[in-house]
């Protein structure tokens, strides 16, 4: 069972190295969104500092949502998904493996690069840790939720819009709590409450999302 988990993670990472440009898409997108804002909004430092956590979190959310749209698409098109459905390992496990691999090549990179981009907004040093930690807890939740949406809209042409409609309501709390944590820190206040809530979301998502997505996949692949 865990052989399959390892095999799927390995395979997806391998594919990611072969299609490195595809992997970079999410990251490049994230960098672009964040960097365009100073251009669009104007260079006033105070303004930029205030909107920085919001902009970075929104960009991370968008990057996650966009890259997730296609998490099962390739496997569906070439028939690999059918083989996964017929695997002897539980489908939830396979889905979890795919989500983990996906997060490693997109979410993690976003989390790592976020502090660098934040510097561009002149965000004070001590907030960088808070920002990174909030993203580190939040982005896996986004990946899990997104996987359910992607599974539900699989094969529906232009599932993209539908996917957004389905997952956004569930994304919004993560965004509010995550960006809120940084705002609190910027105001010099404690952030434990926010982090505890993010952790709670992570636990619930990790325990249930793979199974929900697995159920959705069986339905979509009919």
């Amino acid at each position: 069972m865990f052989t399959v988990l390892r095999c799927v993670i390995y395979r997806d990472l391998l594919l990611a190295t072969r299609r490195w440009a595809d992997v970079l898409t999410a990251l490049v997108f994230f960098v672009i969104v964040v960097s365009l804002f100073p251009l669009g909004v104007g260079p006033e430092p105070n303004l930029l500092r205030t909107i920085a956590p919001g902009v970075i979190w929104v960009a991370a959310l968008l990057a996650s949502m966009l890259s997730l749209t296609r998490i099962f698409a390739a496997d569906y098109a070439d028939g690999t998904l059918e083989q996964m459905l017929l695997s002897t390992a539980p489908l939830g496990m396979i889905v979890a493996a795919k989500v983990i691999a996906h997060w490693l090549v997109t979410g993690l990179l976003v989390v790592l690069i976020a502090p660098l981009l934040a510097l561009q907004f002149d965000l004070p040093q001590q907030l960088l840790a808070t920002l990174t930690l909030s993203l580190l807890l939040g982005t896996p939740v986004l990946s899990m939720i997104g996987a359910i949406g992607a599974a539900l809209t699989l094969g529906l042409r232009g599932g993209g819009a539908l996917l957004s409609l389905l997952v956004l309501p569930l994304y919004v709390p993560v965004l509010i709590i995550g960006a809120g944590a940084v705002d609190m820190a910027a105001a010099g206040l404690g952030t434990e409450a926010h982090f505890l809530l993010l952790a709670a979301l992570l636990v619930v998502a990790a325990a249930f999302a793979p199974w929900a997505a697995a159920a959705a996949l069986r339905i979509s692949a009919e």
Partner: protein
Amino acid sequence: MRGRRRLFGGLNFTLRDGDLLRVTGANGSGKTSLLRILCGLLSPVCGMVRWGGGDIRSLREEYWRQLLYIGHAHAVKGELTALENLLVTCTLVGVNVSRGQALEALSRLGLAGYEALPVKILSRGQQRRVALARLFLSEKIPLWILDEPFDALDAGAVDCVRLLIAQHLSRGAAVVLTTHQEIRIDNPQVQYINIVS
């Protein structure tokens, strides 16, 4: 039943060890749909599929352990090499194979020298061969379900796969397949289903 049309009904058959079932029918008659129902990928509107006494919908993993399915879309990734494809797909469905076995299987299908190439630059027939190489590694699996296995293969490869199926049948396994080509498979126990729409 696909959409609002009833494709077939009243099918009733039993497949014993060593049986070959050939599903025939015109384009669009529902062969692929039937095969997917037999795998449990599609749920029939009514009727049921039983395997060794249990309903396949409750057996699930139990049943899939004993099943190999290769469809029109053959689960081959263009970016991976032929060898990687074979190893990964086998592990994924729960069959353990070694590198050596996999290389052997590829070369028996005439892909020696192509193992380390990304599959996307291979020709269509070669890609199909990569998918079919799984058959060499699935000798222990008692039920094969193959949707147009000979599609895009040249005459040599067709022969090779044909022999392999005959061998598997003689080992006492069951095979279900569809094909539009008239390819003889030597086997005493052949059943035909012709779907007329």
